[in-house]
Structures are given as structure tokens and as C-alpha cells.
């Protein structure tokens, strides 16, 4: 800790000043800039004091991954290379994090699935790697279009999972993500997800912090497990490794290790609340009708609320920012007055609706939908239509044959 703090106010080789993270993110002046989501990822990493970034091409994250390469060429990232597959890349990220580096990578859809074996390993090894997931379809036939199904697979890996709505979220959360996931009592990897294309390939006004200010570097000696750099004494751990011993001590060791990972996810809660200003955002929580969503479905929900207002229907909103840690108490509180809860999602199974149903009392209030998938957009009209149908109101036909 002392080592990191003492660097604040000093400069790195690029002339950026290591800045107190709270000041950097809350007090430093912001410049409005018109960027694509991919460019915003680059700008966040420029300020993140990253040691190693490992890249692999897969739509829709290829542009961001290549832009980080430009940062490396400019000297803002310690090392950078293209791995041979997502499975290998996530293992290379693990190797770099075991060696005490601050690590960044990006992936999407089938890449997330190919790399999946690594994620519980990252969490189990307590590696605070940050991975951007620009969600896309994982189904066959092949699809490259937006679809958030892959997030469902990340929820039980022991990683922190956040779901950004906008490019501004992305910019801030990349930097805040490192602060939270590198806390000694957390020290877990973060999957920072967004809806591919909608966020990565569209331009938006994003308020950027000054380019000459950056996060303090990662201090691997604050890790709860030893950094594998032979700078602290090695120990011979045990006569009999626990891997395949069929005895109580072995089971108990594995059980307590897993429990500790999930306890660390829980301990990230207070840090996430502090840095993200709560795990959820809310509007009109006194309304009878609530929309609960994450990612760009939040934006569509907001638009649907405006349209419903025009028709005299009052509707509230919950934006879920963190999926792990899961904002159980917050969602219960925000939906306690709701008679109907709608959960619009960009995937076929409705994993968010299932999580919410498992969280709140009287879960029959949850309407799992509307769902779009396979790259379909979600016009706010279909949210409006879903809500009006459920309320028994007359609604127009969407892309149908007329009614």
C-alpha cells in the first residue's frame, strides 16, 4: 500500500501523473469527446497504468483490442501481443497476473465460451484481471450480432460481473474496476460486459478525464496470495497435495477456498457501492410498474417509460449495474411498491428475469420480457406493447399481419 501511495504525484515515463483514484474520477476536469465505444476503451486504458494487454481478434471487440496495440506502440502499456486463441489468451493473462502485472484483455461471444475454463481458475487463483466482454451471439448457426446470453455463463465463475449501459459507464468503470478488484479483501477478476455493437460501434459523447493523469500502478504485494515472482520466500506447501486425496481435510480445504472466493465477491459490495454510487440506479420507485434491466436494455426501457408517460401510464426503472455482486437488497427495496415488474433482455433465456425472480418476494410480479435475441434490436415500442398487454390495455400490432 505504502509503495503505491508514495507514487501519487510522481510521473510515469509518458509524463502522466499518478493521481489519487478518487480525485482522478471525481474531481479532475472532464472533457466532452465524441468517440466510439472501442475508442473509449482505448482512452480508459491510456489512463489505467496497465502492464500487460493480450489481444485476439473476434467481432465486435477486435477494434478495441487493436487500439490498445497502438497504446503499446506509443508506450502506454508495458507489453502487448496477439495470442493464438481465447483459451490461450486467458491463460496468458493469468500468467501475467501471477507474475504481478496489471492485466487487461477483451473478448466476445464464442471467445468467452472458448476461454471459459480459465475464469473459475482466475477467481480461484485470486487474479484481478480485467476482461471486457462485448457480448455477441454464441449460437449456431454462426452469428456475430449483439446478444447477451454469454453473461449467464459468467455469473457462477467467481468473477465480478458488471454490465455497462453506455460508453460513459465503460470509461469510468474500466478505471473503477481496477480499484475495486485490486482491493486486498476482494482481489478477484472482473468481467466488464457491454452489449456488442450497440456500445462498441456507436459514437457517443463521453466525458474524459485528463490524458496526463493516470491510476497509480498495481501493487502485487497487496495480494492475499503470494505473487509468483520469487521476490517473497517460497515454501514447500504440503506433503500431500489436496488435488486428489479423498479425505475430509482435502474436501474441507477446497470447500473453504471456494467459500472464501464468494465471500470476497460479497466483500466487493461495499467497494462497488462506494465507487459506482450504488449497485443500481433508480427512477420513480413509487410507480406500480417497474422496468428492471441491465446494459442497453436500460436505455430502451428509459425510452419506453417516456412513451408510456405520454399515454398517462407511470412507470419506474431499475438499472442493474453489477450482476456480481448481485444487488439483492437494493432490487427488493426498489421494487417493493411495484405490482408489475418487466425485465427486457437481449437474450433468449431471460437470465436476468430468473435472477430477479429468485430475489424478490411475490415473484409472480415478474414478467420475463420482452426478449430479443440473435442480433434483433429492441425498439421501445415492444417494451410498451409488453407492458400494455400485461395490463390489459389495447396495443398496436408489431410487425404483424394487422389485428
Amino acid at each position: 500500500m505504502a509503495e503505491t501511495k508514495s507514487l501519487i504525484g510522481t510521473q510515469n515515463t509518458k509524463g502522466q501523473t499518478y493521481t489519487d483514484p478518487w480525485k482522478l474520477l471525481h474531481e479532475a476536469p472532464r472533457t466532452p469527446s465524441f468517440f466510439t465505444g472501442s475508442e473509449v476503451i482505448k482512452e480508459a486504458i491510456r489512463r489505467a497504468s496497465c502492464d500487460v494487454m493480450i489481444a485476439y481478434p473476434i467481432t465486435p471487440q477486435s477494434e478495441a483490442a487493436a487500439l490498445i496495440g497502438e497504446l503499446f506502440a506509443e508506450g502506454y502499456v508495458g507489453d502487448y501481443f496477439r495470442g493464438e486463441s481465447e483459451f490461450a489468451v486467458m491463460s496468458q493473462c493469468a500468467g501475467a497476473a501471477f507474475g504481478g502485472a496489471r492485466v487487461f484483455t477483451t473478448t466476445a461471444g464464442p471467445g468467452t465460451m472458448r476461454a471459459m475454463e480459465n475464469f473459475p481458475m482466475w477467481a480461484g487463483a485470486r487474479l484481478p484481471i480485467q476482461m471486457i466482454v462485448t457480448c455477441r451471439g454464441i449460437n449456431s448457426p454462426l452469428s456475430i450480432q449483439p446478444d447477451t446470453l454469454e453473461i449467464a455463463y459468467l455469473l457462477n465463475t467467481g468473477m465480478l460481473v458488471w454490465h455497462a449501459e453506455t460508453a460513459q459507464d465503460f470509461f469510468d468503470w474500466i478505471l473503477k474496476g481496477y480499484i475495486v478488484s485490486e482491493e486486498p479483501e476482494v482481489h478477484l477478476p472482473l468481467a466488464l460486459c457491454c452489449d456488442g455493437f450497440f456500445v462498441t460501434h456507436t459514437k457517443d459523447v463521453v466525458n474524459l478525464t485528463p490524458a496526463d493523469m493516470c491510476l497509480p500502478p498495481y501493487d502485487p504485494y497487496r495480494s492475499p496470495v503470494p505473487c509468483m515472482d520469487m521476490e517473497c520466500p517460497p515454501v514447500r506447501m504440503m506433503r500431500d497435495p489436496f488435488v486428489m486425496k479423498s479425505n475430509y481435510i482435502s474436501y474441507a480445504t477446497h470447500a473453504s477456498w471456494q467459500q472464501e472466493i464468494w465471500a470476497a465477491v460479497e466483500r466487493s459490495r461495499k467497494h462497488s457501492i462506494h465507487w459506482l454510487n450504488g449497485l443500481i440506479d433508480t427512477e420513480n420507485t413509487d410507480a406500480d410498474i417497474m422496468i428492471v434491466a441491465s446494459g442497453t436494455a436500460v436505455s430502451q426501457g428509459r425510452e419506453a417509460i417516456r412513451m408510456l408517460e405520454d399515454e398517462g401510464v407511470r412507470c419506474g426503472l431499475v438499472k442493474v449495474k453489477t450482476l456480481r455482486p448481485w444487488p439483492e437488497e437494493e432490487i427488493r427495496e426498489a421494487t417493493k411498491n411495484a405490482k408489475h415488474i418487466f425485465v427486457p433482455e437481449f437474450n433468449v433465456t431471460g437470465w436476468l428475469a430468473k435472477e430477479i425472480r429468485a430475489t424478490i418476494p411475490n415473484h409472480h410480479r415478474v414478467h420475463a420480457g420482452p426478449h430479443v435475441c440473435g442480433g434483433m434490436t429492441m425498439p421501445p415500442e415492444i417494451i410498451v406493447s409488453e407492458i400494455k398487454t400485461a395490463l390489459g390495455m389495447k396495443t398496436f400490432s408489431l410487425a404483424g399481419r394487422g389485428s
Partner: protein
Amino acid sequence: MSKERIQISEALYDIMPSDYQDLVKSATYGKDDRGWKDIGTSKELIEQHSLCAGCPESMAFRYILASLPNPEDTVMVGSTGCTSLVFPMVAVHNIHSLFGNQNAIASGLKRALSVRFPGRVKDVVVLAGDGATVDIGLDMTLQAWFRQEKFTTICFDNELYANTGGQESGLMQKGFVAKMAPVGKLFDKVRLPEIARESGCHYVVNCTVSKPSLVEKVIRNAVHIAREIGPTYLQLYTPCILEIGKNSMEGLQEMRDSEKPTERFAYKEYISDPAKQLLAELAAKDKERKAAAKQLAAQAQAN
């Protein structure tokens, strides 16, 4: 890591585990001429293991750990298999993460250590079985070599999956009857040493671990070349006596039989030109050092 860093506070000395006290008292960290001859007097980097009695892999582990030129700044990467039963007892930082991803882990690790410790030597050594190296991990084994990653890959070749009970592996001999090869293996032993050479390794050796002095030589060469030039590969025969129907005492003879000139573990070596040059330079320096030491000793005697 300097040896000072492992010192124990006097006040806490008696409550430290005896393993750790041994490490401080007698580890050969920082010793220029450490090697297999230290085995017996210095066993601090590995003492016990949980392999089968007489397993040649345990011999190989001892020879390798005694021979590493720079254990105080070496990080090892393992994989799933019998080797992962030994690593918890190795007093050099070591990583196990998944099955087959060892060369990917080592690639990231070596780069992180280079970023964090510029100008300092940090060696990375991969040690994994033949299933991990050649079957499930072949992609990452080769890609690390293509990229010229600067670390050593050691494959303990026992020609089968030992830890899961003796199934067919890519390095198994053709015709061998094993689990998952019920009518005998149908294709040849994968020629990884040749593939390693074509894939960009600067030093490749195929041999058994019957001679500790030979293991010491190839380990030192492989680590030095990987540190300065590029990837190196050692394929060491560590027969699984259990699965080939031998007794505990027969491992050494099995290796000797398999290293005869016509056999599959006859000594085979490839050294690239830049690696040859480096080895010549290292040999010249070593000669100089020995001559200086001799002169110093002669002077001392004369005085």
C-alpha cells in the same frame, strides 16, 4: 530474490517450520557451481514427494532442481498430471493453473516479469508431462515457440497418461496396447523434438534421466539459452514403471535400455548457431573463472 530476503527474524526462529529453517540454513541460492552433486547435502528445493516408489520422475525432479542455474530468481510452471503432485513440495515459486495451458501461462508470466524487473534475470521454466505438452496443450506449446518466448519447456515423457491410469498419449510408441488404445496405438510417436527445431527452438535435447551429470548439463544450457536467445525444449524419458509393468527398482535399467543408439531415447541434440555461440562464450567464461580460482589457490599456497 536475494538470499537475505529469506532470513528469519531471531525472535521468530523457533516457531518457523523446520522446512523453512532448512531453506535458510542450507539452500544453494546464489551458488555459482550448484549442480547434481549437491543432492544429498542440499535437498532444500525438494525433499519429499508423493510419487510412486522408484518413479524416475522423482529422480528427474531432484536433478533438475539441483541444476537450475538461478533458482532464487526462477519461476516454474507446471500442468495437471503426476508432476502436479510434486510441485507443492518444491521450494521455487511454481504455478499450476489448468491442464495443457502451461506454455501460455509461461508466456504471460515471462512478459510480466520482464516488464516489472527490467535489467534483472528472471528465468521461467515449464515442466509438464507428455499429455499436457503434446496432446491437449500442443497448440500453446508450439505457439510459444513460434513467438520466440524466452523460457525453457521441459516435457517429462512417460509415453502415456500416467496420473489418470495409463491411457494412450501422442508420445506413446506405435503398437503399444493401453487403455484407450485397445488394439494397440495406431500411429507413430509424435516427433516433437524435430517439430521443436522447426518451430524455432534454439536448443532441443531428447534423452533419458539416467545420468544426473547429463541432466545438469542440458538444464543449464537450456535455461541459459532461453534467457538470452529464445525458446528451448527438453524431452526427458521418465518411464511410468507402474504402467509398463516394471518394479520399483527397474526404472533406471528401463532408461538405460531405451537410450541405446538404436532406441527412441538415444541422445539427440540440436543447437542453433546463436545458441552455439552463447554456449562457447559461457564455456570460455567458466574456464576463465576456474583458472582465476586456481591461480588464487596457488597464490594462497605460495604465501
